[in-house]
């Protein structure tokens, strides 16, 4: 009996050892992804990659946004990575690169034939550069644009607003019984920060000046926040102080609001026949945000510094982000990041039409990231909390922005 127990225990240990050793070996890469439509496209395209590279097995671990950062963190702190390839949200880039979690890609990029790195939209590619090194290549953009109900604008003879003052005037005029001019997203944290920063840009403001000083409580920021609050109180639906992306989208798609500042790739979804907008599909158009400078978001592909399969990881990344596959991805509905893709007549024809891609190119041209530098995630949360407090009247504009400035000073240390 004792012998049986001993042999069972040895077998169990041997099985566990073999199973563990199967987790990481050459020819297999693990990729962490966010569960969004762009992931579905990548997963479909990967079948081609596997056919072309039979020696490399690709395992995706797709999950909601909230779970990603913690998983990447634990994988990166371990002696050997769980994930060989990660996607990096733009506020995480500096933090992860400086923590030593990411592998520099400069030499891999320069030695990759036909990769055309310069073809990436410069504003997007620059996000992944930290202290002169490249730590990621663009995966998909989420730059903000102005989405409007073109039928309403046409029937009222309204021009697309170019300045923030024009926008305020237009959305106020569109607010009547049962219809609101702007579906806004003043939800605490990321959402309000992402939306309000377009207003900050329109007023010529920024988070830091050229010398790196915090200027989030200067006159431009005060004006931007006053304008934002005024517009929310006069042109946004009532009881929307805690609205985020879902609520604003629902309001526009159900015909209750005429405009919204949102991700550029929501336009095809809003205009899709039989989609969320019902009979309103086809009436939505995309434009540059008022003021002309948009908040830019980006997901990038990166390789973890503690990965045991960096070569295979790069083989996958260089393939999925190559000009040819990037074009296929855009045709299948992915958000483009290469100039050649946005200017391709084939993409216009098989994708969402020339108007969308040219509007997107204009948006990206004048855009800037939501936040960069160390601890950007913390910075966004701090500022976003104070902005929300000001919008809901818990603090005055000046109090909120001063508190935001103090919080940012501490966060970036």
């Amino acid at each position, binding site marked *: 009996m004792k012998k049986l127990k001993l042999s069972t225990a040895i077998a169990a240990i041997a099985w566990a050892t073999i199973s563990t050793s199967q987790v990481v070996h050459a020819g297999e890469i693990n990729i962490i992804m966010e569960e969004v439509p762009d992931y579905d496209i990548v997963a479909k395209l990967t079948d081609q990659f596997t056919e072309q590279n039979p020696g490399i097995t690709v395992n995706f671990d797709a999950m909601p946004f909230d779970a990603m950062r913690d998983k990447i*963190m634990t994988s990166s702190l371990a002696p050997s990575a769980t994930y060989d390839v990660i996607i990096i949200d733009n506020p995480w880039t500096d933090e992860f690169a400086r923590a030593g979690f990411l592998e520099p890609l400069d030499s891999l990029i320069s030695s990759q034939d036909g990769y055309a790195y310069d073809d990436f939209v410069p504003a997007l590619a620059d996000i992944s550069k930290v202290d002169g090194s490249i730590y990621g290549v663009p995966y998909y953009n989420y730059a903000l644009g102005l989405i409007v109900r073109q039928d309403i604008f046409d029937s009222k003879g309204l021009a697309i607003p170019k300045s923030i003052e024009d926008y305020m005037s237009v959305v106020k005029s569109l607010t009547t019984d049962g219809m609101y001019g702007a579906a806004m997203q003043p939800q*605490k944290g990321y959402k309000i920060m992402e939306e309000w920063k377009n207003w900050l840009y329109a007023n010529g403001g920024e988070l830091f000046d050229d010398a790196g000083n915090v200027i989030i409580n200067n006159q431009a920021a005060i004006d931007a926040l006053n304008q934002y609050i005024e517009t929310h109180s006069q042109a946004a639906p009532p*009881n929307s102080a805690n609205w985020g992306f879902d*609520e604003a989208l629902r309001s526009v798609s159900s015909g209750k609001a005429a405009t919204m500042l949102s991700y550029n790739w929501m336009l095809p979804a809003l205009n899709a026949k039989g989609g969320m907008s019902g009979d309103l599909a086809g009436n939505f158009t995309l434009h540059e945000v008022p003021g002309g400078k948009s908040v830019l978001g980006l997901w990038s592909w990166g390789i973890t510094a503690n990965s045991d399969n960096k070569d295979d990881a790069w083989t996958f990344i260089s393939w999925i982000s190559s000009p040819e596959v990037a074009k296929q991805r855009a045709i299948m509905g992915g958000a483009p990041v290469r100039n050649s893709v946005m200017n391709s007549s084939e993409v216009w024809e098989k994708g969402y039409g020339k108007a969308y891609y040219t509007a997107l190119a204009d948006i990206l041209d004048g855009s800037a990231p939501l936040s960069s530098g160390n601890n950007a995630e913390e910075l966004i949360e701090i500022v976003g909390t104070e902005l929300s407090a000001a919008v*809901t009247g818990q603090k005055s504009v000046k109090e909120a922005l001063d508190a935001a400035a103090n919080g940012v000073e501490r966060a970036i240390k």
Partner: protein
Amino acid sequence: MRYPLIITNAAQMHIKYKLILPLVFLLSGIMLYPFIFSLWLSLQDYRLTRINDVQFVGFENFGFIATDQSFLNAMGNTISFVASAVIFELILGLSLALLIQKLVIFKGLVRSILLAPMFITPIAVGLMFRFLLNSEIGIIPFYLLRVGVSLDWFGPELALFSIVLIDVWQWTPFMLLMFLAGLEALPKTPFEAARVDGAGRWLTFFSITLPMLRPVIVVALIIRALDAFKVFEYVFAITRGGPGNSTETIMYYIYQTGFRFFRMGEAAAASILLIIFILVFVILIVNLSRPKVIK
């Protein structure tokens, strides 16, 4: 021949310590070590993104946390939440228990239905109410609007109250369960004596039921209050602490500091301050709820 089992006092002591040894080891592993590590962590500038640059800072983290407006606000919100939720749940749970105790038919069925919310995971409850109370797609605001009532359940005035209501919905059944068990265990004689003496319902309730139920009420209050201090899921699923800081609770603050901002030293200091606060709270409740002995 059987010998009587004689164990000396010394041997008894010896066995006693041997028997509790496995538990001591287990608790040391799962509680003592993490606690000591947290204490150490609270004295360091320890960030997950600067793991090779950990520095001893003494009580600096405690100093910062104790004066941080966000921490104080989160503590205030948590105390308001705990007090409101537990008092609501106490009153509702006791009332329902008294009603159910009188039921003659369907007692088991009613009890099962009323206990159901307690078995749902809190994050699911949070998501459920996030949609039910949503001003754009929620069914509750929709029907309220039809009768002319427009409420922003997650606006700055009502958000914390909404979180309290959700907690009351989920955890009143726990109070109900405790009080029902307590009521059913009470001896019948004092009630019969009171009835013979002509005592009314209210007098019986306040003079006999409540005093006799006091130990159960105290235990239920402590368990619920300790659990309510940990409120996190509703906040995470619904408001993320907003609008502004109006629903930021202490657990959300600690989560955000430690796992969003990666400032583990500060998060550990906040946790230790919370432990101290809860210890004082429990000692106070236990002392205050002791029956006064008349000499």
